[in-house]
């Protein structure tokens, strides 16, 4: 699966670069500046860290439908979709992902009292919903999410470990080269957005092959 995702990355390299300039880098910069603003302005009693975590999560999940569509077109030998289609895909599913993510995230944060079990469930649902937003009915989306959750329950946590450790790895490598320069908020924001533009497509291609194939075989 990893080899296949790298080959998809190779095949659509120019489109992926254009999409990362148009979508991923501005989104990451906006999220990062929002994070910095909230961390500076809010008090200690207002839990700015939770908003920062929410922005980090949303930064990843909002990009998923674009690259999921690209990977699926490639895997099912369909026609290659144009750049305008993919940007429209991003705009179309923005509202729905936000509307699902906010209540589930609030439930996860409030449920952290119960030994973090609802938090893990909420994070899994937040991760899985964007892969199935293209279904027509809202009921179908949650049915597919439940199917994947039941099918590979514990191995979803390893996907989390993969996502987080890839982030930390690339971020650490980038900071080694940047540590000699004079750093500021803007430099960190741009470096972070470059890291996101590098990692997100490969991760999404890999996860698409995992989850969508499960959903397709059992449907």
């Amino acid at each position, binding site marked *: 699966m990893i080899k296949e995702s790298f080959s998809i990355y190779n095949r659509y390299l120019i489109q992926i670069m254009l999409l990362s300039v148009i979508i991923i880098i*501005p989104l990451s910069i*906006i999220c990062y*500046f929002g994070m910095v603003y*909230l961390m500076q*302005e*809010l008090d200690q009693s*207002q839990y700015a860290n939770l*908003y920062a975590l929410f922005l980090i999560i949303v930064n990843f999940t909002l990009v998923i439908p674009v690259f999921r569509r690209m990977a699926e077109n490639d895997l099912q030998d369909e026609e290659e979709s144009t750049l305008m289609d993919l940007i429209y895909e991003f*705009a*179309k*599913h*923005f*509202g*729905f992902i*936000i*509307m699902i993510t906010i209540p589930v995230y609030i439930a996860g944060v409030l449920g952290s009292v119960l030994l973090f079990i609802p938090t893990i469930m909420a994070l899994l649902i937040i991760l899985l919903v964007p892969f199935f937003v293209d279904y*027509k009915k*809202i009921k179908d989306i949650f049915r597919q999410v439940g199917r994947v959750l039941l099918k590979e329950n514990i191995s979803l946590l390893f996907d989390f470990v993969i996502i987080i450790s890839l982030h930390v790895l690339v971020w650490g490598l980038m900071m080694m080269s940047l540590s000699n320069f004079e750093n500021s908020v803007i430099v960190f924001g741009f470096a972070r957005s470059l890291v996101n533009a590098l990692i997100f497509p490969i991760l999404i291609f890999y996860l698409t092959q995992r989850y969508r194939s499960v959903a397709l075989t059992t449907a």
Partner: protein
Amino acid sequence: MFSLRAFIQAIGVSLIITIVISFLMGFFSLFAFEWMIIISFLVSYISIGILASLWNMKTPYFAAFLGCITLTVINFIFSNFVLSIPILLNPALIQENFIYSTFVSMLTAIIVIPIIKRREQVAI
């Protein structure tokens, strides 16, 4: 029938437009502070008036009305819980806010909907 997917989609796109334009205005500090507030207000409610009626052509006026009400309530909740501005203590301000936002988006819908319908008739 009123379709929920298209309605949520319209709210999302209007949020994207508002975020991008207010980010650009704030990043380059183009205008004075009051003008920035007025421009982002106009952009968000005019875009919800256009998009909600464009994608919900069966029930256009209701979609525009419900969209602007939803956006206003989202604004209240955000400013109350995230930024902790005690906005819900002032009923006169809330009423004023609702009136202005509904006025702007319904005016846009009244202007835009006949244009869309005429274009559809010409296309057919």
